[in-house]
């Protein structure tokens, strides 16, 4: 049985670790083994955080066929306004992948930041704090708790982008902050309307109350505000323009962190808000979302096609990825939900991998596609990692992206959105085109100067952990799909006529 303490423990572990990071770094600053000690610190932190998440998962699954567990701080669900948590298969899954990916990204950060300039303790502290906030957001059980944790996470994200402090990154971060502030204002307004309509903010209670609502005019307004707010944060076209700038301006570890974790957080919120609270039976939003999904796939991929800067190209792939996730959400099928949860894990790993590889390439001074000419011969391992990421994006077996795309498009067909599936596969071909142009540039073109590049070996460890996991998840998707599968039955208790896989 899950207790409230099980839920709070992982969040607190990471918050305390974040606070301790600054004194710990002060202590080891003078040491000769700084990198080793830093690494051991983070491994220790993530070992403990991982153990607490494992404890949560084991406690949750100790009961046969566990349902959706709501937990209040005061001990009961009855108090309307107390901060509440909710544990179900989705939030457990999210918690596991957040901690796991965050650990890999932090290892990369230790190597990447350590090799370039002075490691900043604040940077690591903010990464840990953001991870903690994301954990809080995915375990939240009411709209207010979600809002607080999520906004804290986005604030942390802004600091991660700002790390370089040059004109471009300040500009991009400012753009991001403005968008986020507008978004949160929208969300708050929408939520206050929902609270006014239902008298509660608890997910399940709100969802229940809204189905019996007699007049839906106010609900439509509330929905528009909440949806617009979260659409901005998830970078859905036409609210996507902050993302390419922000991810390009952010240093590579931040970009990897943001794309792998904060992006996933925003998809999670879309799933939670759309499938668990503002049910499609309450308000039919599927067509609207399907259109946005189509736009996002088209715009993201078209813009990626014309990019010359590699990092920006990957940033536009992130936008396109939002579109594929939306296809799955708008299908409102259990297959779509499974596909979505699987796809954004793969998408997160792939974008993180791509940003990490691009970060190393950038650190040697290669930025545009022209610079990358013949790089496949100079930096074979990093380029191999980038090729693997590209193939996974394109949905080519044996990489994980293929199973993800199959599930997503099949879900769209199941939901009678075949046109969306066709747009999806066509844009997917477009995606293949520009990714193979990248491969062509790296391997097919001759490099302009023959200077050899020295590859750092240790930084390849986190990169190949991710690349390896892409292959493993592509060959044996059951590892993750079995973890996701209980979600279907839980969602069925909310959407009774859900088509079952």
């Amino acid at each position, binding site marked *: 049985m899950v207790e409230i303490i099980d839920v709070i423990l992982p969040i607190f572990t990471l918050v305390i670790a974040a606070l301790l990071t600054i004194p710990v770094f002060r202590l080891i600053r003078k040491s000769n083994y700084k990198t080793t000690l830093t690494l051991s610190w983070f491994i220790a932190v993530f070992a403990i955080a991982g153990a607490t998440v494992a404890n949560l998962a084991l406690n949750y699954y100790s009961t046969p066929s566990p349902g959706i567990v709501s937990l209040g701080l005061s001990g009961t669900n009855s108090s309307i306004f107390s901060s509440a948590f909710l544990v179900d298969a989705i939030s457990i899954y999210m918690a596991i992948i957040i901690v796991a990916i965050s650990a890999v990204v932090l290892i990369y950060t230790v190597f990447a930041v350590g090799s370039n300039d002075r490691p900043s303790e604040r940077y690591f502290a903010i990464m840990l704090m953001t991870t903690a906030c994301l954990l809080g957001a995915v375990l939240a059980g009411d709209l207010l708790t979600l809002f607080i944790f999520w906004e804290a996470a986005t604030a942390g994200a802004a600091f991660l982008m700002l790390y370089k402090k040059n004109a471009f990154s300040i500009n991009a971060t400012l753009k991001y902050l403005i968008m986020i502030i507008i978004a949160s204002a929208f969300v708050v307004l929408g939520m206050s309307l929902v609270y006014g309509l239902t008298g509660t903010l608890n997910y399940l209670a709100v969802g229940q109350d809204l189905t019996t609502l007699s007049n839906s005019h106010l609900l439509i307004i509330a929905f528009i505000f909440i949806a617009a707010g979260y659409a901005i944060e998830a970078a859905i076209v036409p609210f996507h323009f902050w993302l390419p700038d922000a991810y390009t301006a952010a240093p590579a570890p931040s970009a990897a962190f943001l794309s792998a974790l904060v992006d996933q957080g925003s998809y999670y919120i879309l799933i939670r808000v759309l499938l668990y609270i503002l049910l499609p039976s309450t308000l039919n939003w599927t067509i609207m979302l399907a259109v946005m999904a189509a736009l996002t796939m088209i715009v993201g991929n078209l813009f990626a096609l014309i990019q010359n800067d590699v990092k920006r190209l990957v940033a536009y792939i992130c936008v396109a990825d939002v579109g594929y996730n939306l296809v799955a959400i708008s299908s409102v099928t259990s297959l779509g939900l499974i596909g979505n949860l699987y796809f954004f894990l793969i998408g997160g790993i792939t974008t993180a991998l791509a940003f990490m590889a691009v970060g190393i390439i950038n650190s040697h001074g290669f930025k545009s596609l022209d610079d990358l000419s013949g790089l496949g011969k100079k930096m074979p391992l990093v380029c191999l990692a980038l090729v693997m990421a590209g193939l996974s994006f394109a949905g080519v077996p044996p990489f994980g992206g293929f*199973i993800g795309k199959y599930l997503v498009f*099949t879900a769209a067909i199941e939901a009678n959105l*075949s046109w969306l599936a066709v747009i999806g596969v066509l844009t997917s071909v477009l995606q293949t085109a520009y990714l193979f142009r990248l491969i062509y540039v790296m*391997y097919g073109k001759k490099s302009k100067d023959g200077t050899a590049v020295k590859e750092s070996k240790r930084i390849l460890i986190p990169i190949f952990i991710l690349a390896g996991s892409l292959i493993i998840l592509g060959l044996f998707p059951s590892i993750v799909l079995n973890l996701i599968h209980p979600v279907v039955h839980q969602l069925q208790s909310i959407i009774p006529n859900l088509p079952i896989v």
Partner: protein
Amino acid sequence: MTFALLAVFAIPTLSIPLVYFTGKKSPKVAAIFVALIALVNIALLLTTVPTILNSSTHQYTESYTWISVIKTSFTLFADGISVSIALVSLALILVAALFSITYMAGKKHLPVYYALLCMLSVGLVGVFITSNLLLFYFCWELMLVPAYFIIGEWGYRDSYKQAFKFFIYTHAGAVFVLLGIGATYIATGTTDMFQAQAALMTASSTLVKWILIALTAGFAVKMAVIPVHMWLPDAHSEAPAPMSALLSGVIISAGAYAILRLSLGMVFPAVGITFGTNFLHALSIVGVLSAFFGSLIALVSTDIKRLIAYSSIAHMGYIMFGLSLFPANAAAGTVVLLASSLAITGTVLHIISHALSKGLLFLTAGGVMHQTEKRDIRKMGGLASKMPFTAVSSTIAALSIGGAPPFACFISEFLIFVGAFQIIHVDSFYIIPTALMLIATVLSLAYMLRFTSNVFLGQPKDEEIEVSKEGKEEKKTLEVSNYMKLSFAILVVLIILVGIYPTFFLNLIQTVRIG
């Protein structure tokens, strides 16, 4: 042996890193390693043959748990058709590896080349021996990636561009296959092709028609028939010769196999007789057009490899025409016994004999290019005296492609035409296509004779070879190395064997029931 097919999958997969590291020590050993893996796999596949011939279902099946959440299991099966084509594919992998020893010698990154060749064999054979749609797609795409890199890295002029074209075309086709597979899963709740076939009979007929169109269109791109042939001449002519042999030999034929197995075998029985007849007529028109287009351009091509590449388009036309002779009443759910459908038996045999002949033709052309460093057939001539072994092998391949007895393609084309005459009694539409295809056969012999006479017969057109060779060391012979000779010899023997004794394959093919 209970794990035979799993081993066919696992042995090359697990060997990929081994091949790579062996290749670092000696590329030659890596090549022989790849050839040995193919040989072991041939032996493993042969162990399933008794089961196929003798069991009541005429199938050999193995099933393992894979992705239980979406009802997808790792189902491997072999029946007469799939085992025959898989055997031929492995034979081609084997000769391609042997041929590469001399052909690729001195090129860069050879360990990677052999590792990719090994990876290619996994996907290529996997396509034929699985009955799970998702696994089928998995293998279908898995052969693209190594093929892309082999064409790109070790090909001729501007090879990465041609490889890109190859990849984009075939991948664009493949995503429609993926949609078709997804729709089949939605309609039937299974991804096993045999279970899906039964379940599709009760599915919505509009959806079934769309599935048929999506799958067939996707596979047609791989087959490179008109009007989606554009990638083939470039990719095949710029690829290194062993890769051309594999591409033209089996990779494009995998499209034909997939149309037979999935479009016609799985979806077709559910579309209804009117739509089914129209569909088959459309296939036959595509077939005739491809055969004529390919043959006519091959007649005037001057580039040795482009000529053969266009002849591949022509022969995909024959195979497509053969597929269009599928009994139309199968569209109403009648089971097709291959023992009674000569046209389809002939088509499957033609896939096999074309793979062997075209593989040999590309390899000999590669040998000629490797020794003379020329590719324009107008500048060649009289090579028969300088490279007799190659000349004989190449002529056998050319005669087979041209449809001359006693070589392999003769018997398969003969069966297709006999089947066509059977069908004409039922459906008079086929009179004109059959007549046209007979004319195309003449064209096919014509361009092959032109090829042979230009390259090997007559007087040497270019004295430069003479001069340079005499100037060096008075070397009159240009004959290929022993490894190349061995690879030619294997294929020559197989072509003649299939030509005079096709019974081994015919017995296997005719056990199959479709629908």
